[in-house]
């Protein structure tokens, strides 16, 4: 039973990583950049929902909608102001700018919402589901998160795989110049990518704060890094990979703590990651693109 309990905890934690990782991977897959500010957009999403429900007294769903709208606009604005001018620059330059944006968002949040943590009230209400006479508990947030993850994953896969804009995104990620020669508006395509990624970040933010209800200006950064790790673990750029990577990372983290050592759990989690990447250098579900010589 304790095994199952741990498994469920692992899935809860992992599904949170997964939902963040989906946004990471989406942006990485198309814009080929590690958007280190993604975690901070998540934080903004959390605050928006918090403000809407706590200060304005809106119902939870309206809070979520507000978060999505604000984050989408924010994501596009960031892209426009900070990343677009660097389209021709080496990808590392964009990475550093993303870090600057991350600092910016954190410190702006600190000025707006102060350093005092806020306790977030979950947007998913209702008691946990208990099984086996209460020995197993599955919280509703977990169910909603897993469900949301799967829906988003499938939607993203259909979108990038089948839709016209989706294929255009893949073309842009391969070769911006050639994509332009196909008549694709590269800037718009990347903007759309950021809009989607940031909208996902808002949802992730709300769910993250619902599952782990404290909110601070730094709330997004560590889950952001973990989710980035998860995305790579699953094969960066791969949408199902982000899901699998996220959930597995959560499970590994919980199992490492439960069965080996809480003191060494960080080392174990990252150690497993390294070993997996050595065996599967493109991540669990990453496509192996062998370069034709």
């Amino acid at each position, binding site marked *: 039973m304790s095994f199952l309990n741990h498994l469920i905890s692992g899935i809860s934690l992992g599904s949170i990583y997964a939902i963040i990782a989906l946004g990471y991977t989406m942006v990485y897959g198309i814009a080929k950049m590690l958007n280190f500010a993604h975690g901070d957009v998540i934080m903004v999403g959390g605050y928006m929902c918090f403000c809407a429900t706590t200060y304005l007294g809106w119902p939870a769903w309206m809070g979520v909608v507000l978060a999505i709208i604000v984050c989408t606009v924010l994501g596009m604005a960031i892209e426009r102001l900070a990343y677009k*001018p660097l389209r021709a620059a080496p990808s590392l330059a964009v990475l*550093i*700018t993303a870090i600057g944006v991350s600092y910016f968002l954190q410190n702006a949040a600190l000025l707006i919402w102060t350093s005092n943590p806020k306790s977030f009230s979950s947007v998913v209400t209702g008691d946990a589901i208990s099984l086996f006479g209460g020995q197993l508990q599955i919280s509703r947030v977990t169910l909603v998160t897993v469900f949301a993850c799967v829906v988003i994953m499938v939607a993203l896969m259909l979108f990038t795989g089948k839709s016209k804009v989706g294929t255009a995104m893949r073309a842009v990620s391969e070769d911006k110049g050639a994509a332009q020669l196909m008549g694709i508006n590269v800037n718009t395509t990347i903007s759309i990518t950021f809009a989607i990624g940031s909208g996902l970040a808002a949802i992730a933010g709300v769910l993250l704060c619902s599952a782990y209800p404290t909110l601070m200006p730094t709330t997004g950064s560590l889950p952001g890094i973990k989710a980035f790790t998860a995305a790579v673990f699953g094969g960066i750029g791969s949408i199902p990979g982000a899901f699998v990577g996220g959930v597995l990372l959560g499970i590994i983290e919980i199992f490492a703590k439960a069965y080996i050592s809480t003191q060494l759990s960080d080392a174990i989690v990252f150690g497993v990651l390294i070993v997996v990447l050595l065996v599967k*250098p493109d991540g669990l579900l990453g496509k192996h693109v062998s370069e034709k010589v």
Partner: protein
Amino acid sequence: MNKLKSYAASRRGRDTLLSFGIVIAAFIIVQALIAGGMISSQIKGLLVPICAYVVMAISLNMTVGILGELSLGHAGFMSVGAFAGIVTTTCLADAIPLAPLRLAVAMIVGAAFAALAGVIVGVPVLRLKGDYLAIVTLAFGEIIKNIVNVMYLGRDADGLHFSLVEQNFQLGDGGKMIINGPIGVSGVAKISTFTSGVVLILVTLFFVLNFINSRTGRAVMAVRDNKIAADSIGISVTHYKLLAFVVSAAFAGMAGTLYAMNFSTVTAAKFDFNTSILVLVFVVLGGLGNIWGSIIAAALLTLLPELLRGLSNYRMLIYAILLIVMMLFNNSSLKKRMLEKRGMKQMEKLERAEKSGKEGA
């Protein structure tokens, strides 16, 4: 033909001279200012960390700029160097009373341990490409942090005692805990000085520039530009990747020792992802592969948040904005145009010189 060659060589030589020149000039100016009492404690306190970060930036530039692999865990090597250095100086406190010498020995030990860590990470990991390598170095940095965090190392009359996770030894009378788990290291004798920092920078510069301008360095850059082609002309990709990575780790280790010996207290948590990122920022802002750019960026960006203290609460916000603006400027057409103008003038000068040379001949 000879002219071209000498032009290339002289340009390379000039870059080298420029790097050394900047460092030495800065050193002399600062020393003069200190002697004249014209430098604030704030700046004085920053001198050694700046030196450490400069060395970090130069060494990371080897991995990112010269080898072309993104590393997000460089602070891990700094950490190894820092703790190895602390243990060394603590143990040698009586054996080598002369502080600078003790520091030098500690740095060498720090470099050796960091290089060892570089080999341990590098051998399996350098097979990965691009962002996978980045994530693994990040993971490695976190692992080092976690391990140092649960490491207990003490010394008494019987020698060194060591344990992981739990302190399972008792120190005899007069014993001293050197690394005390999460509590880290306290009461370090501060023996790093600005002079030692500058010497370390010069040594690093000497080796790194020599490295780049040699057969080995060219092989590493070839690997960076095109692995398949490098392989096809007889350059072992893994060998040279590892070599550059380990050399880079060793210098990070020395920087770690220098850094640690400047503070009375050090914890593993200092050398986390954020520090790795900070150094990466120096490297990218200074220009990939551009050594003296790294020096200036590291110094400037370490100073910047301190100089912004007057802005109080808006300090880090402004810092973030400045960082973004600098990155944008660095890659903007404005800067390109400025450089072009300068380049145009140089070109003209060269042409003129050539012409007059011809006429003279």
